[in-house]
């Protein structure tokens, strides 16, 4: 019998793994977790239902020529959403994941080329309290990786996000891994056992930016596989910012430039904005500067996310928490963007 708190934490993650897989050995009791979210229904509509057309007609009030090409999102409010419903924080992250699926779907349908999501800042890592006696051990291909000293919620969220790449549902493309087996051990007991197989391609490219060294090796391996396999996809580029800091990005770009100066490849006087752009982690995307940044849950700040890249970005602050952010909220943000007058400091257009 597993302890109560870790049980609740893990079950919401396991739900995302278990739809097409073997039955769990762990109890799947989740208090107050609505049926809608179990079935992947988001705001009354089934997320990801049906094969989306390449370019769907836009909702009323939006025009193709005034749509942003790159949207960035700070997915804030998962925990507060859960707390307001008397649910554990893990449920908030699970609901947040479904919300993300919905937004990715909408971006694909409406022709947005790049979507950057701010998963966790480097400021968000929290050491587990000493009395939380849970250790998660991940076995992949017979190799054992122990997740300790890191925030379980964040790791679980990311595991769900990237592991969906290995399954035949969800937001990112799949690829054939054969019989990759992942076994999650909870305090030494087998908690979960899943075989991944591949199908479906949704033509979405996935990249990760940020300091991935803090993530468990298993997750890093997973992310590398996904990035490599999806690098030629072109419908939508999904950039996931994990342990990312805007200031850190500029510092590491500066350090790369300094190495070039040290090796006399360039002089200090050659350093300009274009050189810095090339060295930033966001150079993985063709359009590295977001046109629109959306932050949910009403917080009016940037939280050290994308500083250089936000020079001329239109900012939109939504009141709803991220798990509640759905199509109507996204349309409102896009309508607001359409009304903005952007003249980049120069003449009135």
């Amino acid at each position, binding site marked *: 019998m597993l302890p109560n708190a870790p049980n609740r934490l893990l079950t919401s993650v396991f739900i995302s793994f278990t739809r097409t897989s073997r039955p769990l050995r762990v109890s799947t009791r989740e208090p107050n977790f609505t049926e809608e979210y179990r079935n992947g229904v988001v705001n009354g509509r089934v997320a990801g239902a049906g094969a989306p057309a390449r370019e769907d007609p836009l909702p009323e009030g939006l025009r193709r020529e005034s749509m942003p090409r790159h949207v960035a999102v700070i997915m804030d409010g998962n925990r507060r959403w859960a707390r307001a419903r008397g649910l554990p924080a893990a449920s908030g992250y699970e609901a947040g994941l479904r919300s993300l699926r919905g937004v990715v779907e909408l971006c694909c349908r409406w022709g947005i080329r790049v979507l950057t999501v701010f998963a966790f800042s480097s400021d968000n890592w929290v050491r587990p309290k000493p009395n939380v006696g849970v250790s998660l051990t991940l076995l992949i291909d017979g190799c054992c990786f122990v997740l300790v000293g890191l925030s379980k919620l964040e790791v679980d969220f990311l595991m769900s996000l990237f592991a969906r790449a290995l399954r035949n549902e969800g937001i990112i493309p799949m690829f054939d891994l054969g019989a990759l087996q992942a076994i999650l051990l909870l305090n030494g007991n087998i908690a979960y056992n899943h075989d991944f197989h591949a199908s479906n391609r949704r033509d979405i490219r996935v990249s990760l930016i940020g300091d991935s060294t803090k993530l468990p090796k298993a997750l890093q391996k997973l992310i590398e596989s996904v990035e490599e396999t999806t690098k030629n996809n072109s419908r939508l580029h999904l950039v996931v910012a994990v342990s990312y800091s805007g200031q850190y990005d500029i510092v590491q770009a*500066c350090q790369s430039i*300094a190495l070039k100066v040290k090796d006399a490849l360039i002089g200090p006087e050659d350093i300009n904005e274009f050189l810095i752009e090339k060295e930033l982690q966001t150079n993985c995307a063709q359009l590295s500067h977001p046109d629109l940044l959306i932050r949910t849950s009403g917080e009016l700040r940037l939280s050290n996310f994308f500083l250089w890249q936000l020079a*001329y970005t239109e*900012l939109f602050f939504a009141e709803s928490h991220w798990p509640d952010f759905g199509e109507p909220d996204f349309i409102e943000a896009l309508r607001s963007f359409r009304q*903005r007058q952007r003249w980049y400091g120069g003449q009135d257009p």
Partner: protein
Amino acid sequence: MDLEMGEDRFFGSSLTILRRFLFRILAVGPIPNHITFIMDGNRRYAKKQNLEQGAGHKAGFPALMSMLKYCYELGVKFITVYAFSIDNFKRRPEEVQYVMDLMQEKIEGLLKEESIVNQYGVRVYFVGNLKLLNEPVRVAAEKAMLATANNTSTLLLICVAYTSSDEIVHSIQNSCQEKWDEMQASKVNGACNGEICKQEKERCAIKLVDLEKHMYMGVAPDPDILIRSSGEMRLSNFLLWQSANCLLYSPSALWPEIGLRHLVWAVLNFQRNHSYLEKKKKHSYLEKKKKQL
């Protein structure tokens, strides 16, 4: 006529007393240390009021003086204003010239006896790529910085010929130059065995503190509140590095229409989020120290 003037003076004094009383109440909670303003909407104001072109900027100046007065009365130590962006040089030459002439006139006015600078002991800094300014404005700016260098109560940073990306490029250039010079000096000074070279390499690696040291805005702490008038919600290449954890507020009032109520709203919002932001700042500082960025 005397009676009317007397009534105006009485009314004005009453308002001042009320305002100071309001600030006393606000000061029960935490007061922001550094407030920044993007003075947006002057041209739209001129259009709205059917004023001649450029007159909107002139109309914006009294609003700036009022906001400075309110902030200093409230106890804010650092104020930054975005007066002129490098991008603004793309505007019509007549407008650029008008703004330059206006800036020169107002900078010279700052040094007068009765100006706000002397009233509140304000030290003035002009922040930006001042080489891009025409000579009369640059000379006036340098004179103002020199004349107020001994003021210590409060700081007013005026961003002219400024963009954040230019500031960051400049900071990286200077950091690289400094480290390059240090490396050359250490090569000249000693024989390099493996251990010393490794230590030298680490010392010479550019860190976050090096970049911050070379920022134009390095003379002030990071802002607590960024207020952009006219309802536009974007940074326009202003203080990108420094506004990582800053409260963003964009009232719909055009800059010449901005008033006390907008400042009060911003401060109340700041106070509401203050304890949470302080924790984040502390945590962020510890993370940076650990990473030795």
